[in-house]
């Protein structure tokens, strides 16, 4: 049983997470194949959420310019926009609606994905908990928007919202009285609602900023292709199936039936089933459950990263690469002739080891001194990784011996062990210093090295596969030395459910190594330094 599986059994929600994670991984494979790993929308759910927010903001500003606040003017101005200026006003109105619906859909998928991949406990409680008010504000902003149109749906929303709010014992007079009969509503109501409808998303944006500010390099923008495609498709939907009003509100009539927007108003029919008190119970219990989830149970943390000042030259690479901003550069304290030193905040450290992989002193070739890099993982120091590598390679035989470096959260590396394959599992593949690949090949511990781990968007620590790829390709420090034969390296990003594919890729790689060894010639350029993500 690997480390990730051990953690899994201690988690009371594992029975929910396992099937959900499996479903997401199946979708990921499909979307990687369909759109490519870079534009897989499931890898950019947070970024898509931000992008939809901006679409809502821009379309909302346009709609606001033509909206009139008044009992009859509100409905008439929206109708004029929809039918007279359908080519822009109508599209903007529909875009405002569909981007808002898309936002709720994306938020739901984002929450479930982070839950399924267990990315909400430990130091990530902060982003998770701040996500809860963000969701509440998104719903509140959407609901107040429906109110403004002042059609039959708006009447239903107004009456039901008032009934829900009236359940709170804080109002002297029932709010629902404001919608008792036509003479009870006045124009000022629309000014108030407009103010609330604009203020809520601004507060939401403020909290969204906090939501991502403990994350290093948050993906607040989706990849360009994905962003353009999302916008174009939402515009197409707006043209083909424009958002329409449902007739003017008439307080002397019952607004029934109404075409509900179920993304925002799913809880409103519950008022008729359970009463406003029941709906408040759903809201309260739902929010409370989400809020306390990061501590159900708390994540058992591995020992955090430790800085060794004797080997730290303050190069900043660890701080730049840390996915959660747990490392900051401080003024040097040991008198050595460097400006800065790395300081780890243990509360924010997720013990992924990516900092070790980024450290230029983390090289297994060192002989003069003990193998202690400038920054190292307390629970799995680099010297232990080197020992494990030697151990994995020790028993291997044949002409195509391979050492596999994988992560605890991807496929179970131990299952790959054979007479010619030896595996070393790390907390995250991003922990592997590129020099370790050089070490294995130059010391002839094996003929080939396989780097594997979670697919990019499935990485438990967010940036592991990306940093590893960039280091090997020479785009990021520390780079893999040019002397290392790229054809002897295989990179396969595969989740736990893709072990069979991983085994197939390794077998094929071994065949190529054996052929190359026998022919004593370099393999075909097309196969050199191959990266495999999708089948």
């Amino acid at each position, binding site marked *: 049983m690997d480390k990730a599986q051990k953690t899994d059994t201690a988690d009371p929600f594992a029975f929910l997470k396992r099937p959900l994670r499996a479903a997401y991984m199946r979708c990921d494979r499909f979307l990687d194949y369909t759109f490519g790993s870079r534009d897989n929308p499931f890898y950019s759910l947070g970024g898509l959420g931000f992008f939809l927010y901006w679409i809502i903001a821009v379309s909302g500003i346009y709609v606001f310019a033509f909206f009139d606040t008044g009992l009859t003017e509100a409905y008439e101005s929206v109708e004029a926009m929809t039918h007279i200026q359908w080519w822009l006003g109508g599209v903007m109105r529909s875009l405002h609606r569909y981007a808002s619906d898309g936002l709720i859909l994306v938020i739901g998928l984002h929450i479930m994905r982070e839950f399924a991949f267990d990315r909400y406990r430990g130091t990530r409680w902060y982003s998770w908990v701040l996500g809860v008010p963000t969701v509440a504000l998104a719903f509140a902003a959407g609901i107040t928007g429906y109110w403004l149109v002042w059609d039959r749906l708006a009447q239903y929303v107004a009456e039901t919202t008032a009934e829900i709010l009236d359940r709170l014992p804080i109002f002297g007079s*029932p709010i629902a009285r404001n919608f008792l009969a036509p003479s009870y509503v006045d124009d000022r109501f629309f000014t108030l609602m407009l103010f609330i409808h604009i203020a809520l998303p601004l507060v939401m944006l403020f909290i969204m900023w906090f939501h991502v500010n403990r994350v290093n390099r948050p993906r607040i923008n989706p990849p360009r292709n994905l962003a353009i495609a999302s916008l174009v498709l939402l515009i197409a939907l707006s043209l083909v199936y424009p958002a329409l009003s449902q007739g003017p509100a008439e307080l002397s009539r*019952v607004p029934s039936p109404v075409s509900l927007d179920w993304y925002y108003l799913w809880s409103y029919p519950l008022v008729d089933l359970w009463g406003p008190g029941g709906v408040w119970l759903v809201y309260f219990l739902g929010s409370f459950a989400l809020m306390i989830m990061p501590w159900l149970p708390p994540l058992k943390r591995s020992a955090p990263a430790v800085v060794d000042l004797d080997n730290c030259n303050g190069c900043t690479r660890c701080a730049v690469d840390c996915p959660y901003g747990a490392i900051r550069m401080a003024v040097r304290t040991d008198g050595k002739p460097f400006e800065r030193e790395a300081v780890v905040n243990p509360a924010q450290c997720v013990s992924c080891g990516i900092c070790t992989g980024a450290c230029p002193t983390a090289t297994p070739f060192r002989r003069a001194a003990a193998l202690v890099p400038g920054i190292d993982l307390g629970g799995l120091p680099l010297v232990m990784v080197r020992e494990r590598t030697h151990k994995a390679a020790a028993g291997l035989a044949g002409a195509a011996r391979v050492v596999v470096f994988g992560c605890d959260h991807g496929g179970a590396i131990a299952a790959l062990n054979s007479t010619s394959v030896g595996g070393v599992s790390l907390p995250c593949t991003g922990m592997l210093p590129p020099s370790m690949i050089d070490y294995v090949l130059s010391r002839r511990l094996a003929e080939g090295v396989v780097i594997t781990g979670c697919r990019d968007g499935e990485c438990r620590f967010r940036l592991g596969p990306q940093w590893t790829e960039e280091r090997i390709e020479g785009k990021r420090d520390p780079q893999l030395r040019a002397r290392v034969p790229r054809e002897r390296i295989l990179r396969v990003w595969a989740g736990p459910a893709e072990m069979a594919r991983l085994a197939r890729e390794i077998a094929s790689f071994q065949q190529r190594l054996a052929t190359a060894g026998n022919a004593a010639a370099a393999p075909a350029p097309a196969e050199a330094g191959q990266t495999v993500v999708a089948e």
Partner: protein
Amino acid sequence: MKPLRHAAQAAFVLITLGLIGYFSASPPYARVPPESALIKLSFAHAAAKKGGCRELSAEELERLAPNMRRKTICSRERLPVDIEVLLDGAPLYAERLPPTGLSGDGPSRVYERFVVPAGSHSLVLRLRDSERAAGFDYETTHAVTLAAGESLAIDFFQGGFRFE
């Protein structure tokens, strides 16, 4: 390989847009059955003060600071409001509405919706806001014909029931 990929892209796009578009306005929801009407009863009405008012004696006034010497004092707390609604002679709603506020000095309030069959109805409304033991302070009978989907609002305002 490419046509298959394009087909997968089209399927994903259509499903996603379909999901957004469909649930954005479907399926419709009916809050009240067809051939029904709605009666909404709502008011915020302050009942009389509990225990009434009394005049202070000279001794009691003497004990108070000069600027606090008001001759009449009343209890802060209000009485509850009793409301009864009868539809075609049958009880539709009967409730004792407590005063609002931490000290019970606010108005009693109510907002209730009743789904009734469309057609002609006779409504009887009774309200008590005093300490009287029997009977009601206000009572009215109202005949109304409600079309399907119509909504009738009943308020209690300035000492009388108001229908709109």
